[in-house]
C-alpha cells in the first residue's frame, strides 16, 4: 500500500451516512474507493452531477458523462445532472458537507495554497476557491512533505486559495485538526514518532492528550 492509499483509506472514515461530498482531483479521488460499508455518500462533481458512480467499463462509458477531472464516469441510481451555475450554488451555498482537496501548503491559521506557483505552474483555481469557502467541512489530504520539505507551515508562502478555511489535515504521518490555538495532532501513524512528525512540520504542533494511533488498515508497510 502506497502513501496515497494510506491517506485515502483514513480520510474515508470521515464520511458519514447521507453526506454530500466533493473530492478534488488526484489523491482525494481515491477516497471514493474506501467508503465504509453500510453508509451511503453522495459524491458531487462540480461540472454538473450528483451521485457520481465508479469508472464504467469500456462498453458502459459515455462521452457526455465526465467528472471534474475530465475522466469518464457513471451515475448511480438517484443521481441528477445540472449546469455549472446550479453546481456552484450547491457548493457555495453550504450544501456540500465535506470536501477533500490536495494541497501544496497549509498553515496553522487554516490557510491553504494550492492553485499557483508563480512563474512555474499556473493551473488555475478551478472550483477549489468556491469549495473551500462553501463546504461545511474542509479536509486537506496530502503527502506530509514535498521532497523532504515541510508543507504544513507557520504561514503559507504561496498565494492563498482560501483564508482560514481548512478544518483537518490528513497525511501519511497522521491526522491533524486546525484549532484556534494552532494545529493539533490527534492521530499518529504508528510507524512514526511524535518527534518525526514535528521534525517534518514547520508549524508547532499541539499534541493531543489522547493522541491515538491512526486508524488505517495496514496491508503491508508503506
Amino acid at each position: 500500500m502506497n502513501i496515497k492509499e494510506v491517506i485515502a483509506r483514513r480520510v474515508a472514515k470521515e464520511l458519514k451516512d447521507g453526506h454530500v461530498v466533493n473530492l478534488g482531483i488526484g489523491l482525494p479521488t481515491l477516497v471514493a474507493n474506501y467508503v465504509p460499508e453500510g453508509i451511503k455518500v453522495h459524491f458531487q462533481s462540480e461540472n454538473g452531477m450528483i451521485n457520481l458512480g465508479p469508472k464504467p467499463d469500456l462498453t458502459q462509458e459515455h462521452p457526455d458523462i465526465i467528472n471534474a477531472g475530465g475522466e469518464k464516469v457513471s451515475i448511480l441510481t438517484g443521481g441528477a445532472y445540472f449546469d455549472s451555475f446550479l453546481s456552484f450554488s450547491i457548493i457555495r451555498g453550504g450544501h456540500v458537507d465535506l470536501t477533500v482537496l490536495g494541497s501544496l501548503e497549509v498553515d496553522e491559521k487554516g490557510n491553504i495554497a494550492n492553485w499557483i506557483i508563480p512563474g512555474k505552474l499556473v493551473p488555475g483555481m478551478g472550483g477549489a476557491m468556491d469549495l473551500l469557502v462553501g463546504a461545511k467541512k474542509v479536509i486537506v489530504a496530502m503527502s506530509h512533505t514535498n521532497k523532504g520539505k515541510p508543507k504544513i507551515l507557520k504561514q503559507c508562502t504561496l498565494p492563498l486559495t482560501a483564508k482560514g478555511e481548512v478544518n483537518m489535515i490528513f497525511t501519511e504521518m497522521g491526522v491533524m485538526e486546525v484549532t484556534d490555538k494552532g494545529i493539533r495532532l490527534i492521530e499518529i501513524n504508528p510507524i512514526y514518532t511524535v518527534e518525526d512528525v514535528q521534525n517534518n512540520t514547520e508549524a508547532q504542533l499541539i499534541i493531543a492528550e489522547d493522541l491515538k494511533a491512526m486508524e488505517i488498515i495496514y496491508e503491508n508497510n508503506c
Partner: protein
Amino acid sequence: MKLIDINQFKAHLSDGLSIMVGGFMAVGTSETLIDAIVETNVKNLTIICNDAGYPDKGVGKLIKNKQVKRLIASHVGLNPLVGQMMAEGSLEVILTPQGTLAEQIRAGGSGLGGILTPTGVGTQVEEGKQKIIINDKEYLLETALKADIAIIYGSLVDKFGNVIYNATTRNFNPIMAMASEKVFVWAEKYVDELEPNYIMTPHIFVDYIVKENN
C-alpha cells in the same frame, strides 16, 4: 429562428470578437464550430470558457492557432501550451474561480450589475475589487460578464431553437446562451419539437441554429 450552415456562421466572425464557448474539458463544446473559427483564422479573440481545453480539443485549438489574445477561464492546467504562452507573454489569461465565472456570466445575461461572493476573499482574486461587508461577513463584488458571441453545444435542438443538454455536457452552455449578443447553437441531434417542460435553453436565447450542411 434562422437555420444556417457553416459558411454562414463563418460570415459572423471577425477579428477582436469576444466569444463564450460552452464546455468543461471540451465536453459540451461544439468541435464543429471551433473548427470553423480555426478555418476563418480570425485573430485577437477574447475567449471565455471554463478551461483551456486540451491542445487539440475545444478552445485549445484556437489557442494553438494563435487566435486568442485573452482567455478568461478558471483552469488551464490540462493544456501545457497555455502556461508556455503566458510565460512568453503571447497570451493574456484571467483566472477566475469557477463559481464566480458562472455567476458573472449569469449576471451578464440577467441584467444584474454583479453579485457579492465570499469566494476569493483573502486571496489574489480580491485585488482591485470592491469589498462589501454584510452581516459582518466580507464579500467581493464581482461584475457581470457579456460577450459578442456564444457557441453552444446542444444534445437535442428543435426547429424553434429550444435546447436540451445531455448529462454533463450542460455545464456553462445555458448561462452563456443568455449572456451573448449573438448565440449560435450546434446540435448533436436536430429534432422537430421538444417537450416544453424539459427545455433547458428556451428558443428566445438562440439566434442561429448551425447545421454542417444545410
